[in-house]
């Protein structure tokens, strides 16, 4: 080994040439191969990430001004590989050296030009096959989401319209089917009949115990034999009176027995009347109860609108949840200060697979990434898939606390070939406060709805939107990526529907409601916390359908009510007639017999009492006459005449 001397003992001078060669190779690689390798890497990475082929025509970098120009980015539509979902003509920007030296990316102005949609590809793009997890099925979260959506759709489709359609579709159905057996008044009448029968038997028995007419006749005979005048002596008078008194007492006893029975009968008859009234009241209650128990469909306009448009709006809901998940994944953190509510700009931890990378910012410093302005322009006419787009996105940054600017996007334009007119979208994402705010506004003055679109597909009704233009106004406010307020106003103008239904009347109801509306308005509102999505849907179609259904259903319900009344009347009328007859018989027989007995008893009693009075008077007269004679005889004897 050769011994080195001087600086050569420490410094490896012979490394200068290899080092120069390495640097030269790097420069040459950057000059001739870097762009093409970057282009391939970007195509490969984006294809992997998006699951559909991405092609880039040109990728050019320039170190001197740190500029990048990417031309013709084609992203294959995974659903239709023969076309691109989006095609961007050019993206270009140049970064600041000052920021790059600080390991930051700051762009003063970027430009995105010539955006086109659904452009046919020269050859179909590659679409990645579903991953093993996708093959096995959706994730648990997706399953829950799908189940909830399915449940909501089924709930509305089957319950509201299904019930209404089945009502209208079966005009001959028996509304009392299945509930007839539970008519209470019928049971009450039957029980009452039994009670009347038992009472009748009771009264027959009691009649047998009551004094017979013969007994009153016998009393009359006995009375006739009693001497009521020409008493020979007081003893005879006394004997007559005694006999008569006995007869009176006996007649009184019999009368009381009959009177008691009469009172009991009156009480029984009153009770029967009261029970008849109670049966009549029960019949009314039964009718009311059965009316309530008839399964009348709920036909409010909102439920109908939800039934019709839930399927139409569900994809938008899915999109919103998807974008929310993406936002949560990529949006910069916004941690609060320890013990305070305000975010701390001087430290923003960013979790990564390997450790945590902190951003130590300070006001006016560069954030990790900051694209101050992105100008978006596109001109229609160059191809039928392009549109006139004009707008800009300002202050895309990873740390808004440093830039003190929210992300603001404002785009407007139209796509004449796709019949999209008056498109405007504004997005603001403000992450400067403890609770971030996303404000999104989207308006489209007119666009063609992708058709045909099945709105309803149930066993009772199939509603397909065949053709329509629409206008849209959408507003979304999302606070802290959780609490949101969503307002959608989507109006279908010149909509053409196809209605098919097994029941003619259901089809007619739908067709009359749809034809009566010049345009269909749809308002969807939601205010909640993600992932809950209680969408409140209202539409003039719902209201119109409600009216049409209501009219038809009212006729059906009235018919059902009438049938119900008839059914109940039929059920109880037979029993009621028998009962009435029974009561009338009971009243006439028992009352008549009892009244006759009572009259007899009263007559005999009165007769006996008269006879007593008569005997007493006769006895008095005779005594007076005897005393007069005795007195005359004594006077004659005294005065000697």
């Amino acid at each position, binding site marked *: *080994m*050769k011994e*080195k001397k001087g600086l050569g*003992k*420490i*410094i*490896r001078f012979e*490394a200068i040439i*290899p*080092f120069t060669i390495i640097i030269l190779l790097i420069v040459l690689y950057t000059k001739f191969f870097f762009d093409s390798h970057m282009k391939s890497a970007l195509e490969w990475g984006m294809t992997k990430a998006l699951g559909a082929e991405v092609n880039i025509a040109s990728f050019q970098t320039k170190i001197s001004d740190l500029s990048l120009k990417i031309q013709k980015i084609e992203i294959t539509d995974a659903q239709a590989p023969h076309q691109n979902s989006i095609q961007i003509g050019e993206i270009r920007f140049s970064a600041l050296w*000052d920021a790059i*030296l*600080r*390991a*930051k990316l700051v762009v003063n102005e970027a430009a995105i030009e010539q955006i086109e949609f659904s452009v046919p590809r020269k050859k179909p793009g590659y679409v990645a096959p579903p991953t093993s997890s996708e093959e096995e099925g959706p994730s648990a979260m997706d399953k829950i989401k799908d189940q909830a959506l399915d449940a909501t759709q089924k709930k509305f489709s089957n319950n509201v319209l299904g019930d209404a359609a089945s009502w209208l579709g079966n005009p001959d159905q028996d509304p009392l089917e299945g509930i007839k057996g539970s008519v209470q008044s019928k049971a009450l009448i039957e029980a009452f009949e039994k009670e009347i029968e038992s009472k009748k038997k009771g009264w027959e028995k009691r009649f047998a115990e009551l004094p017979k007419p013969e007994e009153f006749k016998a009393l009359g005979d006995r009375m006739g034999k009693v001497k009521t005048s020409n008493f020979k002596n007081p003893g005879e008078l006394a004997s007559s009176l005694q006999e008569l008194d006995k007869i009176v007492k006996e007649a009184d006893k019999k009368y009381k027995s009959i009177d008691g029975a009469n009172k009991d009968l009156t009480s029984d008859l009153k009770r029967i009347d009261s029970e008849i009234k109670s049966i009549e009241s029960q019949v009314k209650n039964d009718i009311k109860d059965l009316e309530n128990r008839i399964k009348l469909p709920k036909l409010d306009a909102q439920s109908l609108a939800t039934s019709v448009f839930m399927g139409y709006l569900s994809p938008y809901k899915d999109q919103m949840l998807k974008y929310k998940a993406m936002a949560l994944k990529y949006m910069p953190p916004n941690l609060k200060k320890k013990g305070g509510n305000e975010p701390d700009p*001087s*430290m923003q931890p960013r979790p*990564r697979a*390997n*450790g*945590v*990378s*902190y*951003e*130590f*910012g*300070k006001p006016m*410093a*560069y954030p990790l990434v900051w694209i101050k302005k992105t100008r978006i322009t596109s001109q229609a006419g160059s191809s039928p898939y392009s549109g006139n787009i004009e707008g800009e996105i300002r202050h895309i940054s990873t740390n808004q606390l440093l830039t003190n600017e929210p992300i603001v996007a404002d785009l407007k334009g139209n796509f004449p070939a796709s019949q999209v007119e008056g498109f405007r979208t504004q997005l603001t994402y403000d992450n400067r406060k403890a609770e971030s705010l996303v404000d999104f506004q989207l308006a489209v003055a007119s666009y063609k709805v992708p058709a045909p679109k099945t709105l309803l597909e149930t066993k009772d009704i199939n509603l397909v939107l065949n053709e329509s233009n629409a206008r849209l106004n959408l507003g979304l406010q999302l606070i802290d990526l959780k609490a949101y307020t969503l307002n959608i106003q989507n109006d279908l103008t010149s909509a053409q529907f196809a209605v098919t239904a097994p029941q003619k009347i259901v089809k007619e109801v739908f067709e009359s409601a749809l034809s009566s509306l010049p345009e269909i308005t749809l308002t969807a509102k939601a205010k909640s916390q993600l992932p809950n999505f209680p969408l409140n849907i209202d539409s003039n179609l719902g209201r119109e359908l409600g009216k049409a259904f209501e009219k038809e259903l009212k006729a059906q319900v009235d018919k059902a009510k009438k049938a119900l009344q008839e059914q109940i009347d039929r059920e109880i009328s037979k029993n009621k007639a028998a009962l009435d007859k029974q009561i009338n018989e009971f009243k006439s027989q028992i009352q008549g017999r009892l009244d006759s007995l009572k009259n007899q008893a009263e007559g005999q009693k009165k007769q006996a009492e008269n006879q007593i009075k008569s005997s007493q008077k006769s006895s008095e007269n005779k005594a007076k006459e005897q005393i007069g004679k005795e007195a005359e005889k004594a006077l004659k004897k005294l005065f000697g005449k």
Partner: protein
Amino acid sequence: MTLLLKQIFAFLRLLNSDTGTEQLAAGLTMGLFLGFSPFLSLQTLLFLFVLFFFRIQIGAAFLGAFFFKFVAFLADPLADILGRIVLEAEALRSLWVTLYNMPIIPMTRFNNSIVMGSFLAALVLCVPTYFAFKSLILKYRATVVARIKETKIWKAITATKFYNWYISYDKLYGAQ
């Protein structure tokens, strides 16, 4: 690759000779820094530059880097904790803010908890590691190398023409 293999052979040769103990220990200690640093970072380039231009045994450094990469991988959770403690320390906040906003320094990725933790661990371990390696090399030479040289097999090998030819070649063209 040839350069790398040549350096590794040189390392083995130096290890079995009686010279270059400090060079070997320094190379292995540099390997500790390389192993504990992220592959794409400014400090890695800096270490490579130092290795390239200063007479540190490159083979030892690469072997050391290879070995310490595994150690660093196993120690990542500890490095993460240490890095978080240091980077989140309120007292050092202004220092980090200044460094983060300076040119060039952020390219070291010091703001990553694992990078910071690993670097601090390497910094603390470099001095004891240097002396530990030096001591181990000396012990290795005194025990293992001396014993092998006394064996009959080794004596038989050194007696061959091939060995003598190799020694002559090494004197003329052998790299350091």
